[in-house]
């Protein structure tokens, strides 16, 4: 998601071995999530809070990594899944390599790059092998 329009380019459903891209409900989720993050940063009792990092429920854990440019990477995972922090950073690298460096990809548009998808899939497989909850990373 970018910082202004809040448009998501892909949604990962993780922990059930499925890689789901849900283009139908992405715009409304993106809008909702972007507002939630903005409210979160204002509600925080801490000074200089940048927003929600982890949202934990009984059935899933939402992890958010926000870059200094305002882009948010969101991963929904099993609450016991480990290795999400390094996965988020890996996704940032993959985004900067295979989406941004593609000269025909326009910024803030949905990412439809084959190499991006392939590398994302690989990264998810690697993270899955990191295993479930232990001393998380």
């Amino acid at each position: 998601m970018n910082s202004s329009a809040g448009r998501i380019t892909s949604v990962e459903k993780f922990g059930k071995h499925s890689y789901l891209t849900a283009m139908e409900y992405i715009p409304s989720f993106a809008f909702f999530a972007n507002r939630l993050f903005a409210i979160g940063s204002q509600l925080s009792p801490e000074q200089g809070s940048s927003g929600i990092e982890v949202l934990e429920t009984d059935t899933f854990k939402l992890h958010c990594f926000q870059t200094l440019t305002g882009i948010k990477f969101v991963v929904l995972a099993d609450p016991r899944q480990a290795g999400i922090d390094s996965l988020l950073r890996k996704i940032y690298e993959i985004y900067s390599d295979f989406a941004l460096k593609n000269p025909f990809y326009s910024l803030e548009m949905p990412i439809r790059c084959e190499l991006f998808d392939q590398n994302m899939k690989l990264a998810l497989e690697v993270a899955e092998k990191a295993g479930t909850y232990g001393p998380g990373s």
Partner: protein
Amino acid sequence: MSRPAHRRPEYHKINKDLFVLTYGALVAQLCKDYEKDEDVNKYLDKMGHGIGTRLVEDFLARSCVRRCHSYSEIIDIIAQVAFKMYLGITPSVACNNSSRNEFSLILDKNPLVEFVEELPAGRTSLCYCNLLCGIIRGALEMVHLDADVAFLQDRLKGDSVTEIGITFLKKPDEKKYRRKK
């Protein structure tokens, strides 16, 4: 299996000359396409801006720099980390005013001009490396900082040093909670 986010195992090096020649071909072609130096400079800056908006994410992902708290911290990072990472040089930094929003990067070496002897006749206002100004401007824009970036001095024009000036512009409606740096 975990490794630091900034380490890239498959970092392929290419020949620097190929890069320098490609840049030279770009500038030469722009000079053929546009008569006025201002137009060439403008398009170099525009292209650089497009590169900067993309390159900044690569830089942030690979260098893992932390949030900065002052303009001079940002300039230090640009000079010591970014220039080093992408061009293999480390310009020196100077602050030009007491309100600490105008800075200069002084380039001792510049790989882009390695094979350029002098500017062609009639091209005295050409900023050969203006792409760099656009890159810096585009990158800063992506972290919500507006800046004017331009060459203040250029060895190719006969000056004693090559100097890039960066002036941070204050946004009048900048809200505190949105301040990133």
